[in-house]
């Protein structure tokens, strides 16, 4: 697109302002992670690296990280399974209630977390008589992670021509073989992108988790919530937060690369049609 020099400069300025808006609070988090005082006044009185070894040694933080990781992996696995099944059904078949599926799948993430949390907690404890614990947390997380996988996969399926699958069937492959050798390989990157985002959603979730977690467990957000106001623990929380962001740089970049194979960002949609591809609906 041809834009005047001035427009381009203005656009660059807008982008700069936007990025500054996004990153200044994050920089404040980093600064507080090295703050020598436990009280969060500005500007901070001094800097120290002492919180880092304390954070590493904190048993609570380590346990919480592990629990979050376990919950995230399990929830993502379930979401991958259910999301793929649902998108295969919707993209490749026509049936009564087809449009409703997309609607249904997005509901858990669109309705307030407190509603989902209380509803699930109520069902677990009152109707089913199940104790709250890591299992119930995983169920809660999987429920709203399904949509992320579903959207990524269905966008990909819609762009994949069915001719390959038909050819495979014509050549004698049965349903599973076609799926395994033809469909699945083309879905891989969409699945990976969806899985990464589902994991991110589960990892940072607090509201539904608060209502579905048992007494003895803590995910990372629960640990953070518990320690957020404790003056002694606050710098540790900041250190842990910075740590999580730093280790997520690699997976985020990978997700971008993966979805870029089909030409789009990894958030939710399967991505854009490459300009050079002659895909025509």
């Amino acid at each position, binding site marked *: *697109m*041809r834009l005047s020099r001035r427009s*381009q400069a203005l656009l660059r300025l807008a*982008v700069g302002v*936007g990025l500054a808006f*996004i*990153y200044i*609070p*994050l920089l*404040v988090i980093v600064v507080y992670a090295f703050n020598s005082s436990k009280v*969060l*006044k*500005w*500007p901070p009185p001094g800097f120290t690296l002492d919180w880092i070894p304390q954070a590493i040694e904190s048993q609570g933080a380590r346990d919480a990280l592990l629990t979050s990781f376990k919950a995230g992996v399990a929830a993502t696995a379930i979401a991958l399974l*259910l*999301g793929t*099944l*649902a998108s295969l*059904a919707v993209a490749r078949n026509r049936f009564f209630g087809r449009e409703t*599926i*997309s*609607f*249904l*799948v997005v509901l*858990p993430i*669109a*309705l*307030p977390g*407190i*509603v989902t949390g*209380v*509803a*699930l907690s109520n*069902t677990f404890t009152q109707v089913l008589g199940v104790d709250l614990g890591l299992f119930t947390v995983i169920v809660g997380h999987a429920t709203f992670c*399904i*949509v992320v996988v579903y959207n990524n996969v269905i966008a990909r399926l819609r762009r994949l021509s069915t001719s390959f699958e038909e050819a495979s069937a014509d050549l004698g492959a*049965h*349903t*599973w*073989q076609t799926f395994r050798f033809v469909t699945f390989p083309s879905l891989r990157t969409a699945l990976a992108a969806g899985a990464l985002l589902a994991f*991110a959603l589960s*990892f*940072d979730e*607090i*509201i539904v988790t608060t209502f579905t977690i048992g007494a003895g467990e803590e995910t*990372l*957000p629960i640990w953070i*919530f518990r320690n957020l106001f404790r003056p002694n623990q606050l710098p540790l929380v900041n250190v842990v*937060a910075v740590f*999580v*962001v730093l280790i*997520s740089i690699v997976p985020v*970049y990978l997700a*971008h*690369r993966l979805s870029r194979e089909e030409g*789009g*960002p990894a*958030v*939710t949609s399967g991505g*854009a049609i490459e300009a050079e591809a002659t895909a025509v609906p």
Partner: protein
Amino acid sequence: MATEAVVERHSAGRRLAGLFHGRPRLRVGALLAGPVGWLVIGYLGSLAVLLVAAFWTVDPLSGEVVRGLSLENFETLFNEPVYRDIAARTILIAALVTVTDALLAFPIAFYMAKLASRRGKAILVVAVLLPLWSSYLVKVYTWRTMLSSDGVLNWALHPLGLHGPGFGNVAVWLVMSYLWLPYMILPIYAGLERVPDSLISASEDLGASPVTTFRRVILPLVFPAVVAGSIFTFALTLGDYITPRLVSNNQFIGNVVFNNIVNNLPLASAFALVPIVVMVAYLLVARRLGAFEHI
């Protein structure tokens, strides 16, 4: 000369596949059993069980839930002005946050989609996604310290003779716009990527100014993506109760629901119907506008 007799191996997989062959209904059923069972029975069922409580009441003496059919909660919600105020405030701020984020996101997304180099795109996408990985709670709490009397905002504005908004509705609007911005940038970016450059060039070749091209070519094509992003910003603002609690004294719908769960679950359920109804309506409109292709 090797002639292999072709033996038809009927593996278990093939036999099972044969079961589904020519029976598309069965195939659909098998595919959907898991997801639909989980979502409808598990999720919707739980919701229904909770929302049924909206028609129950609480015995004033013992605090026990009384399971009769009653519209008492709805009467309370309609008659007490405070609930209307809270609902209005929540919905209004949700709308404001959505508009703010759309305005903030568009330049960034546009630059990413149309003007950035391949490497620039990669860097910007990572840059925009990274904040999603920093803890929501830490971000909100950091904003709380930034907005406090001795915080960054007042410190920075002091030389200019101004001071920050402190806590309150403005703070909630500011923080929520901050939190959900990446959820708006990415769908718009994806949507803009889908607008072929050839269309834009054609528009310019036909003599349209950039503004006209934007208004009549780009915007209509990217609008569904904007709506898709707005689903997140609106829904997440509508349901949040942690941010209002940390940076404001004013209650959101979520706060009232949260505060009443213990003592008066029926009232909490009844009030929870408000965001549910609003979101369902929003989703239906969004679907009509084609946003579901862009989530």
